[in-house]
């Protein structure tokens, strides 16, 4: 029953590895807590509201500040700024509701 | 041991290629007998063997094995009977390539809950009795014809069945190996196993120690030659 034993070992090792990675992730998060603290400080002191992930257009740069009209404004002949714009939904959330 | 009454088997009922394999066959085989089903190919030997071995369900008739009517039994229970009662030796050895002799021989035991240790001992014993114990870890495609045949027999014996069914066992062997095979079967018969061989090879059905020769033609039994069983060899 060699193959089955080897296979079960492989599975066990992979599961252990996965658990190891899970622990590693917690460890890393703990280790980088200062970084998060620093970022929170940045957000607080510079009064930031958005991540600098996509700088193609206003509505992708400042997702939470954008309104429903923004996708139309930037470049008339283009519907969108690919790829960022195709992944980011125009922000319905803040406009409606209240 | 096995009683067959008025068995018929039709393949592909209702289809254009409907085929009558055997018609109205009755037969009774007692415990410890050694029987040959003789006849040209297409005469229904294999079908009859399949019916006896619970692999083929007859269209009509009754099959009684160890006092139990098996025709109506669902497949799940047929398999259990088959596993306990029969060992099969096939024309083409039908070993599974890519795995060792040991694994091939053990295969019938895999779906059971027999402990590993018991299984191990049994394989050793069976292979030893067939004198191919030294090849236990060899991959089966590396074996010679005779060795393959022995492994096939070992696999048939691993369940310690009451009955061995062999379908043209000598078809792919030369006469020397065929003789060897017959000797082995003879020995097993002497040990009390019921043996049924389907064959049209003279080497097989000319043997004096056969209890019965059933001759088949066009799906019918045309002749049954009965002989007194010989005393078991010591």
């Amino acid at each position, binding site marked *: 029953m060699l193959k089955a034993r080897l296979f079960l070992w492989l*599975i066990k090792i992979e599961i252990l590895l996965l658990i190891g*990675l899970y622990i590693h*992730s917690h460890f*890393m998060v703990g280790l980088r807590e200062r970084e998060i603290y620093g970022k*929170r400080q940045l957000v607080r002191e510079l009064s*930031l509201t958005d991540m600098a992930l996509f700088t193609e257009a206003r509505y992708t740069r400042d997702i939470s500040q954008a309104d429903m009209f923004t996708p139309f404004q930037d470049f008339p002949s283009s519907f969108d700024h690919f790829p960022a714009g195709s992944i980011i939904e125009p922000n319905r959330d803040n406009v409606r509701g209240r | 041991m096995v009683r067959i009454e008025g068995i018929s088997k039709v393949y592909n009922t209702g289809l254009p290629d409907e085929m009558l394999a055997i018609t109205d066959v009755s037969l009774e085989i007692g415990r410890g007998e050694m029987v040959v089903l003789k006849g040209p190919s297409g005469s229904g030997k294999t079908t009859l063997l399949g019916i006896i071995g619970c692999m083929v369900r007859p269209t009509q008739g009754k099959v009684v094995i160890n006092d139990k009517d098996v025709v109506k039994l669902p497949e799940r229970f047929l398999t*259990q009977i088959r596993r306990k009662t029969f060992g099969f030796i*096939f024309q083409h050895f039908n070993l599974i390539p890519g795995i060792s002799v040991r694994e091939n021989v053990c295969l019938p035991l895999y779906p059971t809950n027999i402990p590993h240790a018991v299984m191990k001992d049994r394989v050793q014993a069976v292979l030893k009795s067939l004198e191919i114990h030294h090849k236990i870890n060899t991959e089966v495609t590396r074996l010679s014809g005779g060795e393959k045949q022995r492994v096939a027999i070992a*696999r048939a014996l691993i369940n310690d069945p009451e009955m061995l069914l062999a379908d043209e066992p000598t078809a792919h062997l030369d006469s020397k190996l065929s003789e060897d095979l017959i000797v082995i079967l003879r020995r097993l018969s002497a040990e009390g196993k019921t043996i049924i061989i389907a064959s049209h090879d003279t080497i097989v059905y000319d043997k004096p120690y056969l209890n019965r020769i059933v001759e088949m033609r066009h799906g019918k039994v045309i002749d049954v030659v009965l002989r007194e069983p010989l005393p078991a060899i010591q």
Partner: protein
Amino acid sequence: MKKHYRILEYALSSLLRRKYKNLALFFIYTLIVCLLSSVMFLTHSLKQEAINVFIDAPELIVQRLLGGRHDLIPLSYVDTIKSFPGVATVTPRFWGYYYDSLTGGNYTVMALTSNASLNLITGRMPEEGECAVGKGVAQARQLDINDALFFTLASEQKLMLKVVGIFTANSSVLTNDLVIFDKNDVIRFFALDKAKATDLMVKINNESEIATVANKIKRTLPDTRPITRSEILRTYENVFNWRGGMALVLFCGALLAFFIFAWDKATGLSAEERQEIGILKAIGWETSDVLTLKFWESTVISFTSFLTGVILGYIHVFEFGGTIFVPILKGWSILFPPFDPMPYIDLYQIVVIFFLTVVPYLASTIIPSWKAAIADPDTIMRT
């Protein structure tokens, strides 16, 4: 148990017998799981980071809308808002965008709102005539501390600034395209109306009061749009869900193709396999045993691929910064922050990946397995 163990053993032999086919299957499967889990890990990590970081975002941002567009807000609103109970401070923000024709990048220009010293900056925060820049800007313009930086919009609107601070690389996700000026510089550079600001930042003491204040602002100043902190957080929650979902839709195509392949592999029962199952059934295997065998075969494939894929996905995202995705996500933005996501993972992610990959695969193998399992045992005798 013994029975399953032994059938597993045989299943492994049987998989090994068709080594190349199954290895190919394993690799494709692993690749798909790896890509899928990378997407999930990356989006979850960014989302989690947004939630952890923007918890300190302003409680309320008040924008003015004019004809549906964002417009400058009069500073006279400050006092109105300040008079509402529960409002601690109201601070005007001055910010905007600057297209740098030299590099083709878009910068975000912000005025300093406080003078606190920061951890994630080398150098210091700027005073009048100085600026602090994000890592991305610094790299694009090849800047170092004390270098001069020139901005121009029109003949009157130009600035020559000294770089006194550069945000550290690990803050890039927030600061990559930022250029921080002093307030007066921003007003001068953008030629802003003295009585107006870009928007107002409102601090509120009690969290339970935010919604009430927002409502009041909306009521008393109908041309404004208040954006609460919880809305910012929810935006990020939604965006990355959408993002994760978007990628999932793309991957669904790939998954489908893969399952069709798997189905094809399983249905196209070769004569050899049929023979093998015939033998097993002839020597005493029952239909359900063969089904168990097939179940183990697919389980072995799917579990090893799933585990390997998830592990590789983790390593890909958190050790190599999602190298595969960068070219896809980058598009034509010049300033794209390097990904160094925090390894936030959630068991839920892994459960979902399991449901998306293993469940459909197992389901797609049921009928083919059954078709194989019902093979007549006597087929081997008849051939």
